[in-house]
């Protein structure tokens, strides 16, 4: 069933298992004790950061499948993507598995897009078990989007820190505590922000647009959710989102949480918090799903946000188009 841009899943596909891997900096934060594997070495025993990112993603998928007590033959499709050019981490990670792969690119909102598509495939009866996964690595993202790691330049105070980590979940037709009830498809919004260091401000309008359409389509209000989670708006972006929502008559300041804002404990060079595809993937697949399974949160709205820019477009002075997909999750008790 569909209303507006929101898909309502009749069979309510379930999250059967989830796994997350995070880097050493992330380990210090709230998710450290909830992640399955934490790295002490950001190279993960590989020769390049790109290989390390690929290995994290591959291991997150492998772990999620194992935790679901399934084998490769039971999985119908892997929906995955990452931030690197030609989504190399995801497609290279897919080499390790015997199941089909659909590559996605939705920047930092890949996790919610993957969950949304997996739920749609299962609800449509085309799949039994799907894996949605994504990841990012600070060093590989830094090299692609910004400067070499060792370059001695200052980071502006609006900037965020790309999360080193990967997370994945098995979404299944039958078993699981957490149900995907409905999902709102995002629209690309661009309000003219050109500053690549201020992603929060660029992405906030997309998040606000998706959240408001979700509330309208589902006839709900922000108060109906235990938690409204956005991906990686950071502290500044979260504030802008709250303002934008408040202006339209929705008050989300009570239950809004931003993965980027909470992921790091020490505010040293991270400034506004974490970002990257791995940010929401790690937080959702460790802390949030664990707490939902434990019954702490019953109804959660997860809207990851993505900035769809490239170094070419920002070099040519283009503004930053952004997107946000929302997934509503409910826990059985």
């Amino acid at each position, binding site marked *: 069933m569909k209303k507006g841009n929101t898909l309502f899943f009749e069979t309510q596909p379930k999250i059967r298992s989830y796994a997350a891997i995070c880097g050493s900096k992330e380990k210090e934060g709230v998710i450290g004790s909830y992640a399955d594997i934490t790295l002490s070495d950001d190279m993960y025993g590989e020769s*390049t950061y790109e290989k390390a990112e690929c290995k994290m993603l591959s291991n997150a998928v492998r772990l999620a499948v194992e935790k679901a007590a399934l084998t490769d033959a039971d999985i119908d499709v892997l929906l995955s993507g990452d931030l690197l050019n030609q989504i190399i981490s995801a497609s290279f990670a897919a080499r390790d598995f015997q199941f089909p792969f659909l590559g996605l690119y939705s920047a930092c909102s890949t996790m919610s897009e993957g969950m949304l598509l997996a739920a749609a495939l299962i609800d449509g009866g085309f799949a039994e078990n799907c894996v949605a996964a994504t990841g990012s690595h600070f060093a590989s993202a830094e090299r692609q989007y910004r400067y070499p790691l060792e370059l*001695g330049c200052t980071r502006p105070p609006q900037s965020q820190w790309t999360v080193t980590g990967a997370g994945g979940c098995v979404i299944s037709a039958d078993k699981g505590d957490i149900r995907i009830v409905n999902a709102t498809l995002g629209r690309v919004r661009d309000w003219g922000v050109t500053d690549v260091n201020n992603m929060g401000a660029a992405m906030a309008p997309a998040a606000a647009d998706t959240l408001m359409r979700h509330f309208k389509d589902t006839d709900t209000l922000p108060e109906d959710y235990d938690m409204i989670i956005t991906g990686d708006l950071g502290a500044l972006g979260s504030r802008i989102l709250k303002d934008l929502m408040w202006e339209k008559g929705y008050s989300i300041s009570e239950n809004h949480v931003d993965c980027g804002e909470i992921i790091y404990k020490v505010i040293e060079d991270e400034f506004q918090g974490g970002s990257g595809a791995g940010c929401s993937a790690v937080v959702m697949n460790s802390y949030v799903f664990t707490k939902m399974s434990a019954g702490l949160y019953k109804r959660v709205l997860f809207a990851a946000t993505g900035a769809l820019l490239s170094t070419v477009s920002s070099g040519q002075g283009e503004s930053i188009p952004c997107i946000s997909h929302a997934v509503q999750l409910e826990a059985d008790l």
Partner: protein
Amino acid sequence: MTGKNAQNCNENYLKYVKQLDPPTKHFKNCLSAFGVGGLICTIGQFFRFMLEYAGLSGDELAGAVSVILIFLGCLLTGLGVYDRIGRHAGAGSIVPITGFANSVTSPALEFKTEGYIYGTAAKMFTIAGAIIVYGVFSGVLVGIIYYFL
């Protein structure tokens, strides 16, 4: 406030975002740039005195001091220390010759994974290239002006 309904919604939004920008600490930045930049120059001056004492003079002396500072810049970059200094010192560690060494060494290290020819050698000047081009260009420009004066 953000004026989404207004005709000039983008303009209003950008104005609102700008007003939320966390302020850059100009005074503190200037102070640390002055301190660190001054320290680098003092170290250079120390080597200059030492080499002068050892018997070097003129262009040889200036060249030798530069070479030592470039070496130290490259070494600290390789050890992963220079970017930490640069994060706090800003222009103080970018402007001296050590900053130039850092801007050449850091991409050389970073792109080593793509091979020594297409990685290290080809990408070495991705950042420093701009400095070289415009450095030479402004040198030529000033030279022409000087010629006619």
